[in-house]
């Protein structure tokens, strides 16, 4: 099956019906392994057991940015290639991305209180992630405000691409400005500075959360296709009723 074949919503629905149970099962198994490894990970010599918050905070923070990246690709699909599933993909991803961003902000705050002595600081990293969260909410509001999906699609795609400018700001904020948030310790030049005892559970959790996103995203896309099918049938129903009465 090629990417062109997936442009057909019916074929896409058939594919998701086949792979969703397997994806959900694999996600659950990986999450259980990751949680076990996180529970068994040693305490950090400086942070103590609070380092365990990293195993949920970091995957959510990565996904907060990754999901916007996926939405940006989908936005290009809407504007440039007019792919029939591109807007469906972007719209389905937004609430999931907003949830991951919310979790990154709150778990970061809960990690920050014991380590920094404060829940919140208006530094570049925290502020740029908060802006990302607000942009997710803005996009969701835009899709809800415009009833016609095709009209909403273009506006949402443009807003998504403008918002993508925030992604490098988030990533490099800890290098460009003096922030309370620590610099990158996993994805950085020269390799990870994390000990294997923390790095392996973190990577397992990151893969598990990424699979969770793929699973939820495919399921939400399936729902969005069905919602649009319902809408078009309701419009047909109204048209048929008005023809009969004419």
């Amino acid at each position, binding site marked *: 099956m090629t990417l062109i074949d997936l442009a057909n919503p*019916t074929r896409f*629905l*058939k594919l998701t*019906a086949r792979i969703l149970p397997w994806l959900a099962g694999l996600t659950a198994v990986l999450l259980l392994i990751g949680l076990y490894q996180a*529970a*068994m990970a040693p*305490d950090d010599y400086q942070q*103590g*057991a*609070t380092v*365990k*918050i990293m195993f*949920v*905070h970091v995957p*959510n923070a990565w996904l907060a940015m990754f999901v916007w990246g996926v939405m940006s690709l989908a936005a290009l699909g809407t504007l440039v290639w007019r792919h029939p599933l591109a807007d469906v993909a972007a719209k389905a991803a937004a*609430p*999931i991305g907003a*949830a991951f961003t*919310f*979790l990154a902000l*709150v*778990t970061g705050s*809960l*990690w920050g*209180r*014991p380590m920094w002595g404060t829940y919140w600081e208006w530094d570049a990293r925290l502020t740029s992630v908060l802006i990302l969260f607000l942009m997710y909410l803005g996009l969701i509001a835009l899709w809800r405000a415009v009833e016609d999906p095709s009209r909403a699609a273009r506006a949402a795609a443009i807003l998504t691409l403008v918002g993508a400018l925030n992604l490098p700001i988030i990533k490099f904020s800890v290098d460009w400005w003096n922030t309370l948030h620590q610099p990158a310790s996993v994805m950085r030049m020269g390799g990870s500075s994390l000990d294997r005892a923390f790095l392996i559970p973190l990577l397992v959790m990151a893969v598990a959360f990424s699979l*969770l996103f793929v699973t*939820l995203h495919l*399921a*939400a896309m*399936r*729902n969005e296709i*069905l*919602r649009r*099918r*319902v809408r078009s*049938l*309701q419009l*047909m*129903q109204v048209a*048929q009723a008005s023809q009969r009465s004419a």
Partner: protein
Amino acid sequence: MSLGPYASFITISYVLVAAVVLILIGWVAIDYRRQKARLRELEASGVTRRSGRGVADTR
């Protein structure tokens, strides 16, 4: 496994993540059932797709 003096911060983080993930799963599952139910209602009322397939046919 001892979580030390900041056990409440660690526990709340994990419970919150679990709660939000469960809400997401519930939202997706409930939305799917709702859309399928709407499609079946439309099919029952005689509205058909141009392809001639059942409106609730997704497999």
